[in-house]
C-alpha cells in the first residue's frame, strides 16, 4: 500500500516536473527577448523605415512584408489544403494509392524548409517567371504549410461522428449536401485552428523566402505583389549575423524578435478566438 502511494506521488511529480521545465524555458526566452527588446519598441519603431544602413529608424517594411506574404500563403494553402482534406477524407476510397498519397503528404511536412525555398526558386521564380517577389515567397510558404493544413483538416473531419453523415444521407441528402451542411460546419473550427497554427509557423520562416523574394534592405514599402520585400524573420537574421555592426544594432534585432513573436502570438490568439466563436455559433 505504502509503495503504491509512493509510486503514485512520484510519478505525478515527474509529470509535473516535465511541465515545469517546458514552462521555464518558455519564460526564459520570453523574458530575455522582452527585456532586451522592449526598449526600442515605440510607435516610431513600428511605423518608420529603416535608416542609416539599418542602424536607426523602424521596421515598418518588414512588418508589412511579413503580413502580405502570410496573406498570400493563406490564400494558397487554405482553399487547397481544405479541398484536399475533404477529398481524401470524404470521397477517396481507402486503397493503396490514397494511402500512398496520405503518406507522402505526411512526409512532406518533414521536408526541411530550405528545400522548399530551393523548390520555390525553381518553380515560381524561374519556371513561372514570377521573379523574386511577394507572390513567389507566399506561394513557396503556401506549399510548405500545405501538409500541415491538409493533415489538420483531415483530423478535424475525422472528428465529426459518422452518424452525422449517415443521418443526413438517410434523410435524402446527397453526399455533398451531407458534407456541406452536416460535416463541414463542425469540422471548420478544427480546420481553421490547425491552418492558422501552420500559418503562424510560416510567418516566422526564413529559409523559404530567402531566395524567393525577401530583400536585405528596402527602405520603402513594396509597390505590388511582384516587388521584393523585407520580412521580419529575415530582417532578424540579418540584424543578428549579417549586419556590418552587429553589436550596435542588437537592440533593433531584439525589438524585431519581439514584434515577430507578438505577431505569431496574435495569430495563435486569433485561432483560439475563431474556434471559440464558431463553437458558440454552432451550439446556438
Amino acid at each position, binding site marked *: 500500500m505504502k509503495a503504491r502511494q509512493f509510486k503514485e506521488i512520484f510519478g505525478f511529480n515527474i509529470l509535473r516536473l516535465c511541465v515545469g521545465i517546458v514552462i521555464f524555458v518558455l519564460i526564459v526566452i520570453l523574458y530575455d527577448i522582452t527585456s532586451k527588446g522592449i526598449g526600442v519598441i515605440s510607435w516610431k519603431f513600428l511605423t518608420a523605415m529603416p535608416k542609416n544602413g539599418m542602424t536607426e529608424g523602424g521596421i515598418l517594411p518588414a512588418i508589412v512584408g511579413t503580413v502580405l506574404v502570410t496573406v498570400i500563403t493563406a490564400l494558397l494553402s487554405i482553399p487547397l489544403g481544405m479541398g484536399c482534406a475533404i477529398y481524401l477524407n470524404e470521397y477517396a476510397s*481507402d486503397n493503396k494509392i490514397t494511402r500512398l498519397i496520405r503518406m507522402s503528404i505526411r512526409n512532406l511536412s518533414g521536408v526541411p524548409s530550405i528545400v522548399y525555398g530551393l523548390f520555390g526558386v525553381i518553380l515560381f521564380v524561374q519556371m513561372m517567371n514570377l521573379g523574386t517577389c511577394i507572390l513567389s515567397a507566399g506561394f513557396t510558404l503556401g506549399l510548405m504549410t500545405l501538409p500541415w493544413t491538409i493533415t489538420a483538416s483531415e483530423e478535424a473531419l475525422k472528428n465529426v461522428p459518422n452518424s452525422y453523415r449517415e443521418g*443526413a444521407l438517410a*434523410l435524402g441528402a446527397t453526399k455533398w449536401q451531407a458534407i456541406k451542411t*452536416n460535416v463541414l460546419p463542425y469540422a471548420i473550427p478544427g480546420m481553421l485552428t490547425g491552418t492558422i497554427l501552420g500559418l503562424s509557423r510560416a510567418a516566422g520562416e526564413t529559409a523559404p523566402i530567402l531566395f524567393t523574394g525577401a530583400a536585405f534592405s528596402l527602405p520603402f514599402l513594396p509597390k505590388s505583389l511582384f516587388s521584393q520585400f523585407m520580412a521580419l524573420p529575415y530582417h532578424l537574421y540579418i540584424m543578428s549575423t549579417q549586419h556590418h555592426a552587429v553589436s550596435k544594432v542588437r537592440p533593433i534585432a531584439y525589438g524585431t524578435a519581439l514584434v515577430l513573436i507578438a505577431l505569431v502570438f496574435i495569430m495563435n490568439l486569433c485561432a483560439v478566438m475563431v474556434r471559440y466563436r464558431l463553437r458558440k455559433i454552432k451550439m446556438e
Partner: protein
Amino acid sequence: MDDIKIRAGDFNFYYGKAHVLKNVSMDIATNKVTGIIGPSGCGKSTFLRSINRMNDTILGTKAEGRMIIDGKNIYDEDIDVVEIRRKVGMVFQKSNPFPKTIFDNVAYGLRINGVKDKYYIQERVEKSLKDAAIWDEVKDRLNKNAFELSGGQQQRLCIARALAVEPEIILMDEPASALDPTATLKIEELIQQLKKKYTIIIVTHNMQQAARISDFTAFFMMGELIEYNITSIMFTKPSKKITEDYITGRFG
C-alpha cells in the same frame, strides 16, 4: 398477405468476400410492422440497410438480386438513391441528433430537399414532432440544442426528423436498445401509432418487443431467412425447430 410494399427476391449481399445475406426472399406488407429478429451477425441490420441502400456508403460491398419497392427494383441502374432514401426513412440504433437546435434537426430533411417556404417548414416540423409524440415536451424550447434532450427524447426527435420528409417506409434498427423501459414503452406505443400511415420494419434483439409490436416476424440466421410468418403464429407454433430454440432463448 394484404398489399405488398417491399418485395425482396433472391437478395444477396456481400461485404468483400463475406456472403452476409443469402437468397433472401420476403414480402413486406403495407402499413404493418414487420419485426426482424435473429442472433448478432445474422444479417438483419444488413438487410434493413439494404432497403434504403445505406450499405452503399460502405466500401467494397455488393448487392445481387431484387429489392422491389412499389414495383420498382431499387438496385436498378436508373434509380436515384437520394429519392429512395427520402421515401424510405431510417432511425438508427444510437439516436443521432445533429448538433443543431431541435427545430433545425427536424427541418433538416426538408431544407436539403429544397423546401424554402418558412411557413410550410414550421408546419411540417410541428406536425412531425406531434406525430412522434414529443411535441408537448419540446414545444417551448424548439431553439434549444437537441443534445439537451434525454436519450428517449433524442430517439423520438430522430423519428420526428425522419417523418418530416414524409417517407412511406420507416426502417428502425434496434431503436430502443439503448433506452430505459419507460422510454422503450413510449417508442413502442409510437410505433403502433405510426403504422397507420407508414410501413415499418424494425430490427430488434428483444423477442418480447418483437412479439408485442410487430404484425409479422422474420427470423434470420447466418444470413438466411429461416422463418417468416404472422407474429402470433411465429411465437406460438414456429414451424422450424431452430426458430423455436431461438425464441425460447435456448441460444442467441
